[in-house]
């Protein structure tokens, strides 16, 4: 092995190389963890069945139901036929092949990207795949985590490997200290607005710098989750004490001598001094505001203190055109202050911001306040465990007292495969990751925001930051002291 300084991504790649590809053919990489859900797996299992192949490593595979699951009446049969068929197919396949599954009603059911870390199955230095683009979430632990297609799902089930071409590396340096009310979500929205939705294409991003180190694991997951929205194949954060602390003690974390060996290995992973990235981007955390999108792709975002941009201000003709059609779809006028935009619905949830810390942050803002009359607020925990924990902390009561709907876990309104959808023309402030046309229901309009902006928006009825709220009497519960990432 040469002594060339390597980046984190290169080390993880090196440590999973089964066969080095020759003459431009891909490398064969070993996969440490394969997460499975109901949407992209049925044909993969069917392919195995047809070829008479077993799942090679049941002990590195786990399934959960998330995209189609209802968030109300979860004890009743699922009404939508396509949803029910997909979920039933997953249950049947899991039983037939012997795959561990967490079904609706089980304490570990939930969004696949929340469940993996929660069980301690996501750890530093791993390769993690799932038939879902937001698999990048798991990169927060210093794993190489990638979304794959259905035929690749079958490939991994059968071989526990994947042929992959090496990618380029990009450092995203975020230095400084976030101001109050500015969170991980705002960092990543600012990154995407800066490099564009295609800016990360062909790259694995590594988020670095003091502002990233200061983030909790939840915040790092929020950032890595949306790497895909910058077009990147994956996003990563080097493991450190924060990472170890998060992993330690979880059900599948290493124990005893294994723990020591694991930590010793994890410590070798961070990018070496002198390692060269193919590209670098710098973001100043000190000057970031809460960020919010105005358009129909995640790169169309501005500071919440700004206004809807004028399409004429874009020099690139494609961007100008995209802005024009986005404003038309979003029914927005250039020059409107973002904080004047009224919303119908506030959605707190998804694999971007549906973890316990996100719910705490939102609850912290709304506690003791009243919801804007004509706003519906939907709070959907990322997993059944998150829901249980939130209830144990009394967060559910805060949401209910405020007038929000407290739901069961799943993807929910992030993509509206279940009944949680916006009506045509309705506008949401959403903590999810995609503001595409029709993403949250046909004709729906989405503004991507952080949990604290979502909460403040529910109070005022227009896009708002916590700083816009009237000061309250000091809080008396423990919630106020919890971090807001």
């Amino acid at each position, binding site marked *: 092995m040469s002594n060339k300084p390597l980046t984190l991504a290169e080390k993880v790649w090196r440590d999973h190389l*089964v066969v080095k590809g020759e003459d431009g053919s891909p490398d064969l990489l070993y996969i440490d963890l394969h997460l499975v859900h109901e949407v992209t797996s049925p044909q993969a299992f069917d392919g195995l069945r047809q070829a008479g192949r077993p799942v090679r490593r049941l*002990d590195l595979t*786990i399934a959960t139901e998330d995209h189609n699951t209802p968030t109300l009446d979860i004890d009743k049969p699922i009404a939508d036929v396509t949803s029910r068929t997909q979920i039933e197919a997953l249950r049947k396949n899991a039983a037939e092949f012997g795959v*561990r599954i967490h079904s609706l009603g089980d304490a570990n059911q939930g969004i696949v990207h929340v469940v993996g870390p929660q069980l301690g199955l996501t750890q530093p230095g791993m390769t993690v795949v799932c038939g879902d683009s937001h698999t990048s979430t798991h990169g927060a632990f210093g794993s190489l985590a990638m979304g794959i297609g259905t035929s690749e799902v079958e*490939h991994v089930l059968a*071989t526990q490997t994947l042929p992959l071409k090496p990618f380029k590396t990009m450092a995203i340096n975020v230095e400084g200290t976030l101001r109050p009310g500015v969170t991980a979500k705002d960092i990543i929205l600012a990154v995407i607005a800066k490099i564009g939705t295609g800016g990360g294409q062909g790259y694995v991003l590594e988020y670095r710098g003091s502002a990233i180190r200061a983030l909790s694991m939840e915040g790092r997951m929020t950032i890595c989750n949306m790497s895909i929205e910058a077009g990147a194949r994956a996003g990563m954060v080097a493991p450190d004490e924060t990472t170890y602390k998060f992993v330690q003690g979880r059900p599948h974390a290493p124990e005893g001598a294994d723990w020591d*060996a694991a930590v010793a290995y994890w410590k070798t992973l961070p990018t070496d001094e002198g390692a060269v990235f193919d590209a670098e981007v710098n973001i100043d955390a000190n000057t970031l505001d809460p960020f919010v999108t105005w358009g129909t792709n995640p790169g169309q975002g501005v500071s919440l203190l700004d206004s809807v941009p004028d399409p004429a201000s874009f020099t690139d003709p494609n961007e100008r055109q995209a802005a024009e059609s986005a404003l038309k779809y979003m029914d927005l006028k250039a020059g409107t202050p973002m904080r004047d935009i009224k919303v119908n619905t506030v959605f707190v949830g998804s694999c971007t911001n549906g973890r316990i810390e996100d719910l705490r942050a939102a609850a912290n803002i709304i506690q003791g306040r009243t919801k804007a009359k004509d706003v519906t607020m939907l709070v959907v925990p990322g997993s059944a465990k998150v829901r249980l924990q939130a209830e144990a902390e009394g967060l559910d009561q805060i949401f209910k007292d405020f007038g929000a709907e407290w739901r069961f876990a799943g993807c929910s309104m992030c993509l509206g495969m279940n009944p949680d959808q916006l009506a045509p023309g309705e506008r949401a402030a959403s903590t999810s990751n995609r503001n595409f046309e029709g993403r949250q229901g046909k004709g729906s309009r989405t503004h991507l925001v952080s949990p604290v902006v979502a909460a403040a928006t529910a109070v005022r009825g227009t896009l708002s930051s916590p700083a816009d709220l009237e000061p309250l009497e000091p809080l008396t519960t423990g919630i106020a002291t919890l971090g807001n990432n």
Partner: protein
Amino acid sequence: MEKFEVFTGTAVPLRRSNVDTDQIIPAVYLKRITKTGYDDALFAAWRGEPDFILNQEPYKAGQVLIAGPDFGTGSSREHAVWALRDYGFKAVFSSKFADIFRGNSGKQGLLSGVITDADTEKLWQAIEAQPGIGATVDLVAKTVSVGSLTVNFEIDDYTRWRLLEGLDDIGLTLQNEQAIADFEAKRPSFKPQTLPAKGV
């Protein structure tokens, strides 16, 4: 995947050009959750027309399709190949294929061979002279024959090798079985496993 060397089956002359994947299998069938059982979906829009070729008795058992130019264009759906395969087709010939369709077909064991426009016409005429006649596809010699007519077809060496060996993507990877097993033997014990399940 079965090895493909020499195969003989009922030949079907499809005198249409620009048959896109939406015509091969309409989008409504994409909601299914299986990778097989798409035989009823093949050319679904045309199957209602009595004079469509596959509705005619000698051609119903078709296994070798001779189509016009630009076959398999349009959306990248793998279902197009599944539908042809499930119906019973083992090989498709055209003077021009969409690249994605060709890539997908090679992976699923459906041979797609390129023949000239002139040979397409000759094959059509030979088949129509004797409806129900078999075509013999020889992948070793890269020829397709109907009666006394034999024409050459083109296929890239890599796909040909895969078909001859009967290797799909997974089969190819599993040729590295020893390397995979060696890698697994060296994996550190601290790496997490989903089984036995903990935390439930």
